[in-house]
């Protein structure tokens, strides 16, 4: 056997947002084998969930992932509501859908930016993240948070989207559509991006079926699966939209699917807003007295693919068992198919093409001055400062002409 060079990417590497270790065994420039190590941030969330009440679990599962922080509460709510046999109000359905789609837009923009960064094409990175910012501002206006929105509960949502906010959302969506046009054109017509991503990291239809990959990763290989269409939940059956697919299965196809999906998300949000305005404000929850004994399976289409939650209830006020399957769990495993045989430079973008998410967020409570060790702000002051900024943000967006 010829001698191979080991090139580690990780566990802590500036290219990756989160800790994991890819061991690339290379012969010259070509990747011959690849191994993956994880568990650096395993937090035992499934076990932790068994010690929390159903209301508390929402805040816990929101922290499974920092980027798609609403897809886990979405799937969990679907699972619990299946056990309890609850039908939520139309207004709650539309609000849930709006939050889910806004999240898809900001997550896809984040990925487009990072993909540009991985390719060494930082203009795309700057553009995509600049256009992502107004979406986060909308989140702050609607929920009070730029991320981890705390919107979901059993039987509905925690906050309403009042009618005076609709114009601000509508305006943001029409602005965003123009910017997405610009960005899509820039990415899809760029010869450098074509050269770096076409024919790279190909996953065939059979690979997708073998690894049971989901989301844009599957759709880019021509497997048209999307939970929103196949097993519709919330307001998805009440609005018109289409599933985006591509056939080639390379990195370019994955970018194409994500870019075009954002336009669908904008369309969905616009329809939801129109319908929301006609409904009575405030009807956002139904009362759920208890969760009976049983097993519930809920799923939601996160930006990265199908999130799956299985909740087993023993009739008490906390889950007896809670299994969470994030989409990256099945998508990351495809790296053996997409990276082996590629050059090292292409392996990084092939790894990034599934939009891997290793699920970590950290919580900050106090800010210290590094040189003196003195506390600058405590938790209460931080919260007050954040609330003040949200109020200002809200006024700015609502009063914008």
């Amino acid at each position, binding site marked *: 056997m010829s001698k191979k060079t080991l090139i580690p990417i990780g566990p802590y590497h500036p290219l990756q947002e989160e800790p994991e270790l890819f061991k690339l065994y290379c012969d010259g420039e070509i990747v011959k084998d690849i191994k993956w190590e*994880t568990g650096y941030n395993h937090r035992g969330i499934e076990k932790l969930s068994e010690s929390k009440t159903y209301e508390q679990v929402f805040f816990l599962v929101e922290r499974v992932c920092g980027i798609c922080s609403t897809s886990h509460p979405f799937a969990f709510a679907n699972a619990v509501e299946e056990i309890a046999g609850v039908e939520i109000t139309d207004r709650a359905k539309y609000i849930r859908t709006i939050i889910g789609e806004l999240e898809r837009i900001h997550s896809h923009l984040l990925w487009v930016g990072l993909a540009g960064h991985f390719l060494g094409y930082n203009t795309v990175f700057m553009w995509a993240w600049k256009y992502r910012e107004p979406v986060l501002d909308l989140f702050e206006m609607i929920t009070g948070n730029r991320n981890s929105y705390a919107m979901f509960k059993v039987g509905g949502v925690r906050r309403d989207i009042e009618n005076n906010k609709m114009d601000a959302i509508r305006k943001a969506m029409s602005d965003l559509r123009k910017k997405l046009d610009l960005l899509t054109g820039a990415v899809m017509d760029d010869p450098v991006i074509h050269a770096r991503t076409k024919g790279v990291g190909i996953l065939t239809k059979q690979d997708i079926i073998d690894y049971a990959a989901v989301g844009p990763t599957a759709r880019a290989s021509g497997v048209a699966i999307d939970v929103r269409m196949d097993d519709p939940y919330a307001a998805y059956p009440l609005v018109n939209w289409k599933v985006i697919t591509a056939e080639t299965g390379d990195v370019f196809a994955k970018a194409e699917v994500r870019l075009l999906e954002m336009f669908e998300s904008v369309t969905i949000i616009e329809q939801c807003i129109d319908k929301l305005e006609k409904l009575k404000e405030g009807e956002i929850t139904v009362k759920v007295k208890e969760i009976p004994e049983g097993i519930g399976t809920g*799923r939601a289409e996160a930006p990265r693919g199908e999130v799956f939650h299985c909740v087993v209830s023993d009739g008490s006020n906390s889950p007896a068992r809670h299994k969470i399957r994030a989409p990256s769990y099945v998508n990351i495993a495809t790296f053996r198919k997409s990276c082996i045989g590629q050059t090292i430079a292409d392996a990084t973008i092939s790894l990034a093409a599934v939009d891997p998410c290793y699920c970590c967020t950290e919580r900050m409570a106090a800010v210290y001055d590094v040189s003196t060790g003195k506390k600058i702000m405590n938790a209460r002051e931080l919260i007050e400062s954040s609330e003040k900024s949200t109020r200002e943000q809200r006024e700015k967006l609502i009063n914008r002409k």
Partner: protein
Amino acid sequence: MDTNTIIEQFKKRFSSEILEVTVKSPKRASITVRPEKIVSISEYLYKKAELRFIIASALHTRKGFEIHYHFSKDAVGLILNIHVILDKINPQIESLSNMFNASNWIEREMHELLGIDFINHPNQEKLISEGNWAEGVYPYRKEFK
């Protein structure tokens, strides 16, 4: 193929292996089967009925160790749970990873966290706690404090 046809055909083919069938709604069904036949059952679902393996959830209960294999028929939005109950003392079941790669990691994880043995697994190493967790201590078992 709709949900009823899938379940009826399954019942016809594996009538002697089925212990219980629960159809909750047109999109959710659960079938309890004998664990010995899990490979031929999964092979039928994966290759013949063309269902997608979503994931498996393992539990430690009074009955012993239970695994729900979740399969999805995306064209009709069906989630089909194949439920098996394993031995209390020595939980083991045949691995599905030689048939499809999708179950490789989850079987390693169930082995690591609950101590269920997957026979003929291609590589039953630890997935998440390699080198920093004691051997033979299973954190997702009920007796673990």
